[in-house]
Structures are given as C-alpha cells and as structure tokens.
C-alpha cells in the first residue's frame, strides 16, 4: 500500500471494527489512569504531611495498592493491548482473524481487572468484609481477598489470549506472504508477547498454586521467599512489558512525527530480541537484601542486568539518530543546532521526547539500583519509587499520553480538542515529575523509607544533605500536585475531543526506515531460536535458586501466618517449651548413639 493511499485513510476508515477495540482498550486504560491519579495525589499529600485529613494512616496501604495496581497493571496493560492491536493490524495491513475472540480477551481482561479493583477499593470501607492491601507486589505474607487473585488470574489469561490473537493474525498473514520479512511493528509485538508468556507463567503459578489456595484457606501456609521470587521472576520483565509499547512508539511513530525516518530497522529488531532474552533472568536483582538466596545467584542476576543496559543504550542511539534525520530534513544544521528545527509545538513529539529524556535520567538511578553493593544504600527507601516514576511513571506514561494526541484522531476521526493544552499538559508532567522524582531520590539517600504513611519518627532527625527532609517533602507535594493537574488536563482534553465532530483528512503516515528490513539478518525473524535461548537463560538463572528456596523453606513453607498476625499464645508457649525439649532429646540420643558406637568399636577391636 502506497504512502499516498495510506495518507487518505485513517485507521478507523480502513479497520472500523478493530478501531473500536483499540478505543475500548484506551478508554479502559484512561479510566485506570484517572483512578490511579486520584490515589496518587491522596498519598502524596498524606505521606508528606501536607494534608492527612482524607484518609487514616491505617488505610494508606489500601490507597497505595490502588495507586500501584490501577496504574502499573491496568493503565499500562490496557494501553498496550490497544496499541498492539493497532500496530499488528496496521503493519500487516489486514484485519484480525476473528473479532469475537478479540472481544473475548478484552472482556476477560476488563472483568478480571474489575474484580481485582473491587477487592482493593472494598478495603476503604468497613461495610464490606473484604480487603486486598497487598500492594502491587502482591507476595506473601501479605494476603488479599480471593477475589483479588481470581481477578488477576482472569486478567492474565485475557492477556494471553490477546497475544494468541496477534500471533494468529500474523500466521494468517504469513501464509499469504511466504518468505516476507515480519513487518517491524508486528515483530515488536510478537517478541514482547513471547517475553510476556515466559514472565507471566511464574506469576500465574504463584497465584494459582500458592496465593489463591492460601487465601481460600485450602492450604495453611506458603513459602514467602518462593512467592517473592516468583513475583520478581515476573516483576522485572513486566517493566519491559510496560516499556516495549513506548519503544514501539519511539521507533516507529516518533521519527515520522519529527519528519524523519527510523534510522535502522535491523537495530530495532536486535533491541527487541535482546529484551526478549535478557528481561527475565534478572528478577533476583529486586531481592538483593532477601535472606535465603545465595549471593552468587544475586551476582549472576546483577551481571545479566548490566547487559540489559545495552538494548536501552542502542535505543537511545537509534531513536535520537532517527529524530536527527528528521531535523536535518527540516533544514536543521550544526552539532546541536538541529535540535531547534524539531516540531516542539506538537504535543505528541514534545511529550515523547521529554519522556525519553526522563528515561535517560531513570537510567542513572537504575544503574544504582542494579549494582549489588550500592543497592544496599537505597534499598527499600523512597529512592526506588523515585526511580520508577521516571521509568514507568514518565518514560511510559508520558509517551502513552503524548502518543494519544497522535493516535486518537486515527482511531476516531476526531481532531484533538486543543493541542496547546496538550503541549502544556506534557510539559507540566515533565516539570512535576522532575520535582517529585528528584526529591524522592534525595530523600532516599537520607534513608527515608518507601511505603510509609508517616515517614517521620519522634526522637530521630534525618541527616541534612541536599535540603532537609521537610523541604524535600514540600517538593514532592508540589510535584505530585502538578502531576495530578496534568492528568486532569489530559483527561479533560480527551473528553472534549470526544465531543468534536468526525472529520476527514486526519490520516498520518509512518514512513519506511532508512535502513530497511532487507538489511537485517534473516535469523532475527526466526522466533523459535530466540524463544529457545530465552528459556535456556531463564532456566540457568532460576533453576538453582528456586531449587534452593524450595529445599530450604519447603514448597509450602515452614508456616508463616497471615497479616494481621495471629499469635496464639498457647501454641507460642508450647513451642517455647517443646523446641528446647526436642533438641535436648536429640542431643541425648546422639550422645547415647555415640557411646554405643564407641562400645561397639572397642568390642570389635577386642
């Protein structure tokens, strides 16, 4: 299909049924964004002590769980499924095989997330005996209502079906186009989904085998280290699951918005293959301070993590070079002067560029997190949320919002209500996050803990380094407020856009790469090889640690109670007496045994 023809038709014109799916997914995503932002501003003002009147500190975990789950599971993944549907259909230039299956996975995901959401929000009221204050990292010993886990399981199964839907569409395309290279956007979707299948298998196992039966009371206890490890098996690749749609946009959409072309299609493929290979065998780097995992395994995980910097640095090069090409096309000159020739008034462009810039800063703090020794300095401090608000909270979220300004007209034929508000909104997000994240990092260095409703302590002062604790609190609160305002502007602009009449002539073109797929080695498209290597790396990184964890703590654990902790005093007292008594008995038996052996030995000698 030629560029000229494409320019006449939007995605909606060409694929109305698929456009409806994409729209529905985006709307689900933005609903989650709205809820997440509300809980975000509540918690920002609460923990900084600016306003503690809205919730009790005892409800802080409920708010934190809602903020985390709605934003990093619901907002991101719903946007991803919408974007990936668009990307597969657009780049293969064919409709999905069976739209009923598409709606099935959408409804499964929406239903699952609704169940999970209800179980979390119920924690805010005493009227319903239900809560799921387990945070986004829902491992034991924190325990949620069974509805939370059931909803998550349904949601994940829905996402698996979505992947199968895209694979099926690709296979159908391949039959009609034998020997052709996989179009880049579809290649990105497929590699990301393979990574997701590998990663989410662990969390599905954790939920279905351990957490759900435990929360239903079918099993007494679980091995907390095991559920933690299975969570982080999924918990690190999931950050790339958030990030890969942003990368897809940076690689394929951003260069065209800048008036350029993707610099290198082969490099883009290499990057996605590297993420498929390296995203999963690194999860233990979230557990550097966990007892029960040998240092050697942590070291292997750290090495893999450092390799993972490579595809991100490749991306920095490729994306910036593609944008630079656009700037040169627009008449830009000089070593830095070309930056002035870029379309900075376009909210989609500026938003994505600022997101990329924040991601570069996130790389700095990420390297600190990833280093085993300096991780100890910031582990479990508010530095860590500071870091991931740069990555998922800006690189991903801001890219999604910016891309919406470009993509929404393509799937609705409605022009954006106000591009000026859009531009203001993305810049406001950048400023708000710069303030908030910077202060969070600085507080983390002072040792201020994360996930704490009232992080100040009586009789203890945080050491003063770059501005005191209180000053940084104010910075966090201002930043958080700007972020909330930015979200309100985004949602408001979108709602007003929905009121616009449909028009024609909104079609945008994605231009082919400077160095196209024909320059890429064919082996890159052989997905079976990459699946094989990815699984091998995962087995190498995880088989021994998991075996050791199960060996040390048992498959169902040594018996860890739930939170709130039940201390049965009678059992406690009994254990206090029984355990030393049992040990004395063992000692006595050993003594007698040794004597018997000695006697027998002397008898033999005699």
């Amino acid at each position, binding site marked *: 299909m030629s560029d000229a023809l494409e320019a006449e038709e939007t995605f909606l014109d060409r694929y109305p049924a698929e456009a409806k799916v994409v729209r529905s997914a985006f709307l689900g995503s933005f609903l989650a964004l709205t809820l997440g932002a509300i809980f975000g501003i509540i918690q920002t003002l609460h923990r900084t002590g600016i306003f503690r009147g809205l919730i009790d500190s005892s409800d802080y975990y409920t708010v934190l769980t809602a903020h985390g789950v709605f934003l990093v599971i619901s907002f991101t993944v719903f946007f991803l499924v919408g974007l990936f549907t668009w990307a597969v259909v657009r780049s293969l230039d064919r409709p999905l095989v069976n739209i009923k299956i598409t709606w099935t996975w959408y409804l499964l995901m929406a239903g699952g997330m609704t169940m999970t959401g209800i179980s979390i929000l119920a924690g805010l009221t005493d009227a319903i005996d239900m809560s799921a204050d387990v945070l986004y990292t829902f491992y034991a010993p924190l325990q949620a209502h069974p509805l939370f886990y059931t909803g998550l399981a349904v949601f994940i199964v829905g996402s698996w079906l979505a992947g199968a839907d895209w694979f099926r569409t690709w296979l159908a395309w391949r039959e009609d186009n034998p020997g052709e290279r996989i*179009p880049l956007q579809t290649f990105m979707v497929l590699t990301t989904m393979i990574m997701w299948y590998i990663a989410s298998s662990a969390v599905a196992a954790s939920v279905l085998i351990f957490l759900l039966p435990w929360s239903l009371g079918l099993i007494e206890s679980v091995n907390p280290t095991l559920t933690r490890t299975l969570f982080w098996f999924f918990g690190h690749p999931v950050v790339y699951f958030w990030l890969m749609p942003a990368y897809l946009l940076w690689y394929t959409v951003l260069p065209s918005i800048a008036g350029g072309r993707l610099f290198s299609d082969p490099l883009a493929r290499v990057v996605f293959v590297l993420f498929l290979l390296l995203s999963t065998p690194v999860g233990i780097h979230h557990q550097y301070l966990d007892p029960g995992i040998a240092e050697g395994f942590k070291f292997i995980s750290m090495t893999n993590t450092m390799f993972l910097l490579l595809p991100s640095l490749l991306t920095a090069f490729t994306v910036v070079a593609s944008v630079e090409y656009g700037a040169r096309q627009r008449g830009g000159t000089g070593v830095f002067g070309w930056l002035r020739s870029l379309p900075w008034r376009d909210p989609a462009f500026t938003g994505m560029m600022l997101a990329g810039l924040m991601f570069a800063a996130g790389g700095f703090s990420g390297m600190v997190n990833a280093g085993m020794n*300096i991780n100890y300095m910031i582990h479990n401090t508010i530095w860590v949320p500071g870091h991931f608000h740069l990555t998922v909270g800006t690189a991903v979220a801001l890219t999604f919002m910016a891309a919406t300004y470009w993509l929404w007209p393509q799937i609705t034929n409605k022009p954006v209500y106000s591009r000026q508000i859009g531009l203001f909104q993305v810049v406001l997000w950048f400023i708000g996050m710069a303030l908030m994240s910077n202060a969070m990092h600085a507080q983390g260095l002072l040792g201020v803990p994360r996930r704490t409703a009232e992080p100040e302590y009586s009789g203890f002062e945080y050491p003063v380094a770059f501005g005191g604790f209180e000053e940084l609190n104010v910075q966090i609160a201002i930043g958080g407020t700007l972020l909330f305002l930015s979200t309100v502007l985004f949602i408001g602009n979108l709602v007003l856009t929905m009121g616009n009449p449909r028009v024609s002539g909104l079609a945008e073109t994605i*231009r082919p790469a400077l160095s196209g797929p024909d320059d890429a080695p064919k082996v890159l498209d052989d997905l079976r090889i990459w699946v094989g290597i990815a699984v091998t790396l995962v087995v190498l990184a995880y088989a021994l640690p998991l075996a050791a964890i199960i060996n040390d703590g048992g498959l169902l654990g040594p018996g860890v109670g739930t939170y709130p902790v039940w201390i049965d005093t009678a059992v406690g007292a009994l254990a206090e007496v029984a355990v030393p008594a049992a040990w004395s008995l063992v000692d006595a038996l050993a003594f007698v045994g040794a004597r018997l052996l000695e006697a027998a030995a002397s008898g033999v000698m005699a």
Partner: protein
Amino acid sequence: MSRTETAGASVDDASGDEEFDPVGTLALIAVYFAILLIAWVYIYFIEFLGRDLVVVG
C-alpha cells in the same frame, strides 16, 4: 503486502541520496556519558564522605 517497512528509503527526502551521518546524536550521547561519569564520581562523595560508618549490631 504489509505497510511501512518493506520499502527502502525513497529519494523524496531532501538529502535522500547522501549518506546520513548522525553527528548530532553522537554529540548528545557524549553529553550523556559525561553526565554519567560526573554522577559516578559524585556518588563517591555521597556514599563514602557524606556519612559516617554504620555498624549494625
């Protein structure tokens, strides 16, 4: 026929025939690495000089 990626670069670009050399990108990445190096040195002051030794236990 799929869209976008199968065609090579067409000559409708202003400098379509010329070899594109991303010097601006190289310059920006050099700045990034310079910041990285400075931050690396800076962390020494935070980690080792900014606070006293902590002995646990």
